């Protein structure tokens, strides 16, 4: 924590009142300097591009069945092998990326927005606002996650959109709690009181001071949750509530490949690797972002540390 206070970049310090470069460009620049986060970001970008252009990139249709090519190990014709119906696994992994990522982003997006707003209000206003909101969250949290998701899907019917909604609802209390805990600490900070003393409104305090300073744990939680959402989609698909076969999703493929694990490892291995790499990259990028968004770390990094 304690950093040498005056280790600012002395040469060419910007003399204007605004930072010399826009903040987001500075942030991006520092992120690129952090090799782990940069690599993770590039890989994620590649995965997203694959998901966006899935139709064009897939070597063959995901549901093209070739019975004579069943359970072929990886080869030049089928780099990831084929499954028990002779479908090309590479194509299915490529198309599954779109499904898995869409569900993941959507679910975490819902949980992030709803959960952090609830946590922010509960933590900042305290008293009965806190009591009411957090008790509701407790009730939501008390349900086993899968059971709650099943209930949502039972009401709304299966499908990617509803899967995302179900997972999102399950994750709302997690974000609410993480945000609230962080806000409870920040709202007592003197700079919040100082800002109030010059007449700042609650809205301003929340958006300019409390939220930015409470953000780091939320960022980390987001990256972790993206990972878990992809896995949750897999679990729900496995139970037959998420993606419906024959549509491919990584989780569903993993579940289907499980039965062939000692016979044809590639059925489960490649979708599993896709999940693993994606999840890992989300986490690494999240950690990198958290560091880069902290001005104290920022100065250290820009000052040539590491």
């Amino acid at each position, binding site marked *: 924590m304690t*950093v040498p*206070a*005056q280790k*600012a970049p002395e040469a060419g*310090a*910007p*003399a*204007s*009142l*605004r*930072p*010399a470069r826009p903040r987001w460009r500075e942030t991006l620049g520092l992120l690129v300097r952090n090799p782990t986060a940069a690599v993770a970001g590039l890989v994620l970008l590649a995965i997203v591009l694959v998901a966006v252009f899935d139709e064009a990139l897939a070597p063959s249709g995901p549901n093209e069945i070739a019975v004579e090519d069943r359970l072929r190990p990886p080869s030049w014709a089928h780099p990831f092998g084929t499954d028990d119906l002779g479908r090309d696994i590479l194509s299915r992994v490529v198309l599954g990326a779109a499904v898995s990522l869409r569900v993941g982003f959507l679910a975490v997006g819902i949980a992030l927005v709803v959960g952090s707003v609830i946590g922010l209000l509960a933590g900042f206003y305290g008293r009965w606002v806190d009591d009411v909101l957090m008790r509701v969250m407790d009730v939501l949290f008390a349900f086993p996650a899968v059971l709650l998701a099943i209930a949502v899907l039972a009401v709304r019917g299966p499908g990617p959109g509803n899967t995302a909604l179900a997972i999102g609802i399950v994750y709302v209390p997690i974000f609410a709690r993480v945000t609230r805990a962080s806000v409870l600490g920040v709202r007592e*900070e*003197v*700079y919040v*009181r*100082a*800002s*109030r*003393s*010059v*007449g*700042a*409104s609650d809205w*301003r305090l929340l958006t*300019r*001071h409390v939220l*930015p*300073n409470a953000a780091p744990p939320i960022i980390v939680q987001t990256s972790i949750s993206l990972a878990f959402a992809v896995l949750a989609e897999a679990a729900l698909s496995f139970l037959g509530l998420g993606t419906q076969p024959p549509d491919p999703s990584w989780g569903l493929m993993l579940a289907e490949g499980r039965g062939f694990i000692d016979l044809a490892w590639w059925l489960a291995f490649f979708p599993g690797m896709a999940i693993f790499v994606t999840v890992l990259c989300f986490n690494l990028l999240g950690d990198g972002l958290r560091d880069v968004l*902290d*001005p*104290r770390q*920022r*100065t250290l990094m820009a000052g040539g540390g590491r």
Partner: protein
Amino acid sequence: MSDVLVSARGLEVHFPVRSGGALRRTAGVLRAVDGVDLDIHRGETLGLVGESGCGKSTLGNALLRLVEPTGGRVTFDGTDVTGLGRRALRDLRRRAGMVFQDPFASLDPRRTVAQTVAEPLEVHGLRSGRRERAARVGELLELVGLDPAVAGRYPHEFSGGQRQRVGIARALAGEPDFLVCDEAIASLDVSVQAQVLNLLRRLQRKLGLTLLFISHDLSAVRHISDRIAVMYLGRVVEVGPASAVGAEPQMPYTQALLSAVPVPHPALERSRQRIVLRGDVPSPADVPSGCRFRTRCPHAFEPCPGVDPALQPVGAAPGHVAACHLHGVVGGPVEREGTVASAR
């Protein structure tokens, strides 16, 4: 109107003390500020002294309604502050600023110096346009002795003294009439304390500010103040011109307080007579009856437990008042269960 800018009458800030456990029952009342009468004159520097926990900071916060008073009245420039609506309260926040104790905690680490100093301008819509605002921020930084070129930097790149200057610049941005300095120099190095103290004094003269300087540092208070108010256990017990309170304190507590200040002269320091008070400060949750200082007062006599002393003129200097029965028994017997504990 008179030359009184800020005035408190019977001001009370009581905090409920909750017992632990699920029911959160109110177990008692902590009387942080308990019936304070105080006038602050336009353009003066009033020093507010007292030991830790006597309610100095709470009083300062209550005057600006950063802490909600539970009783009594505060008027600012003739208007009652206690019932202000949202808009009027925001206007008060422009006209009355605060400088905080810890300059390491009072600046948002994620905002640049420029953003911090510009916040009051944005909140009150004082300078429209980026450029005017930036110019004003530069002016303010210069005013507090900082290079305007540092505006784009973050607080962690500054020393404590520099940060406190930023805090002062923020407090001055709305061109306030009144500034509360809440232990503003307490967490600075001694050499830096003098700089910031002199800065405050210079600004006070230059801008015609009214200053409430809260501190437990008597030397600093005597250096900067026109008048001094002494607080003990939630009550102002002596007020007077700085020279009079400093030289001829009339209340035994003030005498004890002043006798604890070292004298920067070897011979005088050796002959300095210290009045050492017995015992600890009573808890503000359990205030003694009558005069609240009587449990530690070396001069306590019959009326002290029964009669709550009111402020009365004492000594030779005009405007010097103290709440002490040694100068004549003034005040009323007080039941502290009621809401109003101040005897006028």
